[in-house]
């Protein structure tokens, strides 16, 4: 297995973070996002229903935070590896606190790990990025570890 497509600069990038960026959670957006998925769960739009189940208001659906796109990392794996086709390999979410309309969510990504694998279409670069989402109180509400494949 060749590791040549991972430069020293890439290797040194483990642990680097994106600039934080903040987004307000808009009620209409939470509802539209659930509609796009085809998920009619009233928890995502009916405040009264959500309150009956212990929430302070309606909440966001499990992958809504995906809309809150982090700023780019200071290193671009596409540029560094010379591989320009991208595939989303998957996501691993962990949830800690509910997210409500009106919350302001601050998003920061961190370059976590990387690997090279031999795929059907040649060498593939597999990078893992952890994105942390926090609320105005500074609590981490969720994390998403995503896998990006370049080939």
């Amino acid at each position, binding site marked *: 297995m060749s590791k040549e497509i991972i430069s020293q600069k890439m290797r040194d990038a483990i642990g680097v973070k994106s600039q934080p960026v903040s987004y307000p959670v808009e009620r209409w957006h939470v509802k539209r996002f659930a509609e796009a998925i085809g998920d009619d769960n009233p928890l995502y739009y009916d405040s009264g229903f959500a309150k009956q189940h212990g929430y302070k208001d309606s909440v966001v659906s499990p992958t809504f935070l995906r809309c809150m796109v982090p700023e780019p990392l200071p290193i671009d794996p596409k540029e560094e590896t010379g591989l320009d086709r991208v595939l989303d390999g998957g996501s*691993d979410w962990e949830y800690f606190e509910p997210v409500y309309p009106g919350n302001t969510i601050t998003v920061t990504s961190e370059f976590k790990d990387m690997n090279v694998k031999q795929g059907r279409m040649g060498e593939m670069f597999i990078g893992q990025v952890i994105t942390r989402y926090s609320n105005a109180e500074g609590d981490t509400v969720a994390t998403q570890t995503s896998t990006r494949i370049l080939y």
Partner: protein
Amino acid sequence: MPVYWEDVQEGTEIPPITKNCSTQQLVMYAGSSLDFYQIHYDKDFALNNNLPGVIIHGALKNAWLGQLVTNWAGPGAKLRKLSVQYRGMDLTDEDLTLAGSVSRKYEMDGKHLVECNIWMENSKGEKTTPGAATVELPTK
């Protein structure tokens, strides 16, 4: 009907849900998630990238697997973890099935939890999108 922790065993099946995704739904998802990669709505672009046609966003399949688990567990449950791997591409206008079962049941720090294996399969029965979820269930 809510699912209570006491009523669930290892092997308990999550009732499957089916999806058949139109290109319109892909555009709705692209617009609401701000993912404008053309392979999800521009057929010519997709074909020029050696794809068989426009393909479903991985993140939309992730959302569906979240829907599978949260709709089964009910509004009193709390989703703690959700993971998915995109192993295969999925196309529009095809019957897709989301399903899963409980793989582990346990208590931790006073919480009543279950882990589930979940997946989406295409009309040929291929599991294109396996995953896992951890859910805190209500007790009686």
